[in-house]
């Protein structure tokens, strides 16, 4: 699978990761190596193999529908840079 500079810039933007100009080339090469490995895996014949959604062959455990969490707002909001009236404040997201 081909991968070029603009793909890397696109992926970085989607992941909100800032990449230095000088790192882009190196990152592109590293990602290409990973994709090369993926290509090798894709080439393996898996015709009669069930798809696996999780490496552990286990089944999800369910919990009963009960409220078990108490209000810890004050505790959690100590982690936030800015709060007001119980709200977390963030830079404005719409124009």
């Amino acid at each position, binding site marked *: 699978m081909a991968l070029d500079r603009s793909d890397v810039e696109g992926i970085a933007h989607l992941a909100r990761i800032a990449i230095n100009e000088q790192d882009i080339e190196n990152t592109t090469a590293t990602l290409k190596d990973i994709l090369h490995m993926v290509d090798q895996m894709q080439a393996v014949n898996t015709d009669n193999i069930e798809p696996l*959604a999780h490496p552990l062959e286990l089944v999800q*455990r369910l919990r009963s529908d009960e*409220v*078990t969490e108490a209000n810890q707002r004050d505790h959690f909001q100590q982690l936030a840079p800015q709060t*007001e*009236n*119980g709200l977390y404040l963030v830079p404005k*997201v719409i124009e």
Partner: protein
Amino acid sequence: MQWEAVIGLEVHVQLATKSKIFSGASTAFGAEPNTQACAVDLGLPGVLPVLNAEVVRMAVMFGLGIHAHINQTNIFARKNYFYPDLPKGYQTSQMDLPIVGKGYVDIPLDNGEMKRIGVTRAHLEEDAGKSLHEDFHGMTGIDLNRAGTPLLEIVSEPELCSAKEAVAYLKYIHGLIRYLGISDGNMAQGSMRCDANVSIRPKGETTLGTRAEIKNVNSFRFIEKAINFEIERQIDVLEAGGKVVQETRLYDSERDETRSMRGKEEANDYRYFPCPDLLPVVISDEDLRAIKEALPELPEQKRQRFMDKFKLSEYDATILTEERETAEYFEQVASQCGDAKLAANWMMGEIAARLNKNNLEITESPVPADRLAKLLSRLKDQTINGKGAKTAFEALWEGADDVDAVIEAKGLKQVTDTHAIAAIIDDIIAKHPEQVEQYKAADDAKRKKMIGFFVGQVMKASKGSANPGQVNQLLQQKLS
């Protein structure tokens, strides 16, 4: 050119659980901001989601309610995007193997026929928090109480052809989730939200046109208006030689128009992948059977029972069973008064009109079912006639609570005493010798029309209290 619309709906239903889909935080509506957002909902490092069993049960109930294939092994995936009301940076949702596969619902059309609409899938996911853009010194306030509330997203096939059909489909889904008790369906509080994908194409064309998605419309009336506006807008664009752009549009109910949400929209790339924190969900045959056996009577079963038991038309039965409360009200009235046809006519006439006019739900009707049943019984046993019943109903609607007392107080009792009616008839005949002569000279066909004059006079003289059938019969005897 003749155009036809193609509409598909995505309905988000908030499931009525006590706790969230992946955490033990409360889902109660209206709490103080962020008092119901725990470490899991906030996406703090090191937390793990644990799936709520009730959410799985409710989704399966819905699937069974629309004759869908249930994927007894289903998988959660991460839908990745950044927005401040989604603290984890991804929404846990389902992609490749949703819990509910293909199903269908039958909806009533205006012409009295039914139409089958395919449901592509329904999958489980978590809701996001709420962003408050009001004045926080140029910042946005985030309330994460809603984050992690369980949602069932129901995706229809693009098989709806008008805004009316879209509303009929939504009403059916709304009724169904309330029958099942899996959601309160409160659109004003956001428990049921709807996105509509709308496109148009020349009539007869089979390929789909470019669609626009209308987001988050929160009432049946606005959905109808938004879709109608959007269809007209697309026709105008195409007829002016333009192209419909694939985009997200927002409905503005104040101006009754849809507007593009973003000038330049990036192509969505959510990079779905299976959620490593959640194992595959497996529903055993035994659990599936238990859920099936515990299902309540569904709207379509009630519809069929009403058709069999009360001899209602399919259309009438569909309208009366759409909402469980309406169906229960009707069934009580029909059983107690012993005349289902009469009960159905009153439900869809007088009751529907008054509820609609006053913007009330059936549960808020000032006339409870047993009182209406009593009134209809009095109509049926001829204590009162149709006109009297309407007058009495008016009083009951205004708050009177005793049917017989109202009939008495308003003098609505029908006169069925033959002697009393005969006396009035004799009086009328004596007062109108000319008309009597004309009647006697006329042939049968004309007489049938002319007798109406006498019936009218007698009814007037009795102040509407005579039995019209009896009056007619006695008049014919006396005039012949």
